[in-house]
């Protein structure tokens, strides 16, 4: 099948049911989507399909054909930079394993809502687990990123 990943057309010859996560990680060597649970429960594997945050560990690659897949590597600078700058300014990551997924969920939120309320932030981020408990910093970073974008 043909996939559009970060603006590039790529071929994937394997099993149609292969989750997008493993196509990205093991066939395309794109490693920012992380493996956490394999069941759509933790959000470490979050990427965008047509701008929507999805859990790539439970999304078959075939569901992405004809659509645009975006990972942190391919996020437009206009949205990636304000988020990454805010993540650095708030010194968010500890172990850091979940943070690519966290930023992808934040990016999906901020792409459609430039000024989210606390509740909207919680709702957008509640599917992303941070075992280090950096949630207060993630929240502050999203507020900061929203200002950076505006």
């Amino acid at each position, binding site marked *: 099948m043909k996939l559009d990943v970060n603006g590039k057309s790529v071929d994937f010859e*394997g*099993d149609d049911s*292969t*989750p997008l996560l*493993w*196509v990205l*990680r*093991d*066939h395309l*060597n794109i*490693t*920012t989507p*992380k*493996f*956490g*649970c*394999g*069941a759509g*429960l*933790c959000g*470490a594997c979050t990427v965008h399909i047509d701008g929507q945050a999805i859990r790539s560990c439970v999304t078959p690659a075939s569901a992405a054909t004809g659509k645009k897949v975006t990972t*942190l*590597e391919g996020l437009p600078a206009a949205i990636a930079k304000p988020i*990454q700058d805010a*993540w*650095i300014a708030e*010194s*968010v*990551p*500890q*172990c*850091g*394993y*979940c*943070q*690519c997924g966290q*930023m992808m969920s934040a990016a999906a939120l901020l792409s459609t809502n430039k000024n989210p309320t606390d509740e909207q*932030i*919680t709702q957008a*981020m*509640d*599917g*992303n*687990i*941070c*075992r*280090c*408990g*950096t*949630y*207060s*910093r*993630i*929240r502050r970073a999203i507020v900061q990123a929203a200002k950076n974008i505006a």
Partner: protein
Amino acid sequence: MDRRSFIKSTSILGSGLLVGFSIKDNIAVAAGEGLSNPWLQINSDNSVRIYVARSEMGQDVYTSMTVLIADELDYPLEKIKIEMAPANAKLYGNDALGGAQITGGSTSMRDAWIKLRTVGATAREMLVAAAAQKWNVAASTCVASGGVVKSGNNQATYGELAADAARQKHSGKPTLKTKDQFKYIGKSVGRLDTPAKVNGTAQYGVDVRQPNMLAASLAMSPVIGGKVRSFDSTAAKAVKGVEAIVEVPDGVAVLARDYYTAKKARDLLNILWDNGNTAAVADMAAIEKGLREASKKKGAVIGKAGNVEAPMTGATKKITAEYQLPFAAHATLEPVNCSVSIQNGECHVWGPIQFQQGAQGAAMAASGLPEEKVFIHTTFIGGGYGRKLENDFVAQATSIAKASGKPVRMIWSREDDMTHDYYRPISLSQMTGGFDAAGKLTGFASKLTSPSVTARAFPGFVVDGSDPFMNEGSANLTYNIANYRAENVIHDTGIRVGYWRAVSNNLNAFAVESFMDELARSAGKDPVAFRMGLLDKHPRAQKVLSTAAEKAGWGKKMPAGRGLGVAQMECYDAYIAVVAEVSLKNGKPTVHKITCAVDPGVAVRPDQVRAQIESGLLLGFSTAMKNKITFKDGAAQQTNFDSYPMLRMSETPIVDITVLEGGEKPAGMGEVGTPLAAPAIANAIVAAGGKRIRSLPFLS
């Protein structure tokens, strides 16, 4: 240059200064002598490389340890290149953990505080000596700062002086900076690993890529320790993309280009397991019964004061209570994984490793190669909490690489990870307190019955039935009580156990601090005032307690169904006090706010002290609220984040932390936040009008 060729070539490097540190002699020495321990390399181009010999799993050693050297060296932090050190306990052993190369026990900074500053300061003094010699001036006229030495009109970069500096004699006892001279220590400096973790280039174990490396998924018995009796791989072999299927000591592994294919085929293996005796004995009723039986034995006495044999002598009122914690899983977000390549007589291991020496030993045993041919490459760790101190996964991946003849990246599924953990031990604490006729607490006895991690992992450290790590949080009570006895009873339940962030501090603190509240209430005293009265020998404990109480609004009028609960302890040389604010609705507790005051001694990285305390508090909180691992027929019944839920943003309470530096050296910060959330919440539930909960989790 890669790390290995660097180590090999350092002895012939003439162009730079290397300062090593001889742990045994406690002195730093120059190139040619101290090369065996290269923490620091100053090159002729004025670039500086620092080797970090503790694993970075979120707790900030990557930056904190670098800061200690950089500050004393007086070299710009942002210009330093950092590499993870190789496995070599002789060079990089942790003196706080018997010389093993281990990241654990909240020891990294306590071990490094003088050691690494000495490395930096020695290099600085050698550079100054070289400059003084070169310019024929007194060393006292030379100032080393920001990577440059100056004296009058003379100036030279560290790199220009490095070769001459390497030839200077040094006592290894430099004059360390005083607090007012620090540029990085105690200041707000960002983490050096943040950019890579934010732009996605940080490499974790699962991200390791090597030429021709295959993904591997290992089928293990649902009962830990079970062995393969026989297996049929017909269906698995038929899966397109499967490259190899191999039997190894812990099970059967499938190799494929991608993990999904390997796991899919693995799930089609038909394996008959030999689960030995464990399956027959390991279910919760049997485990709990065994624990209670064991608690009747006399324990090893590990804390004592006054009348140890009969601490209740003279008491006119006695109170008793029992507290229990369940097995808990580490549940690191990065599942257990390991990558291994065995080629040309060398074995290379990449992974999230907390114990390099142990990893090297495991890979040596599994590969059959000698120490000098086994190389450990420590990646960033996506959560450790003690799980990655174990090296079961290193042995497994090495066995798979050896049996298949392929470089492999073995990744456990979340289900593998949760059902094959080294669990935080289940525990039973039996407490007795006695008041004299005047109402003074004069007797205190505690007895912890639990499996011992140390008895399994480092049996040599268990002496006379006492595991030093089981005694944390009970042998070091801060309360001044005339007659006091703490005991431990080691009981193996058949379930394997491991060190879990803050280890037995979690078990003991829940019992001690819940019980102190019960004692205070039975004496009709305010829980904060009651504790303050017993902390007269620990002014630092009193200070954090009074601060946390004040910040939390202790004593303020609370609405019905809402209450504050307090807990305090000494832990890894830190003093900490926590106040939880809890409300009850239909008996169900909601935690609104956790207020904490902590005395870290010296806060090397103040923002990261806060980060670690917050992280620890939240892990302790969420585990106490929701988590337990149970067993049926020898197998763990919780398998993923649905049955073993993690804290989410919507459930996260406000955390308010005050840092009060009250010492001369840093305490351990990685774990100290974890133990007290549970007792503070239990005490708050009672204050809110709820029932005393003595068995965790709160929401079971």
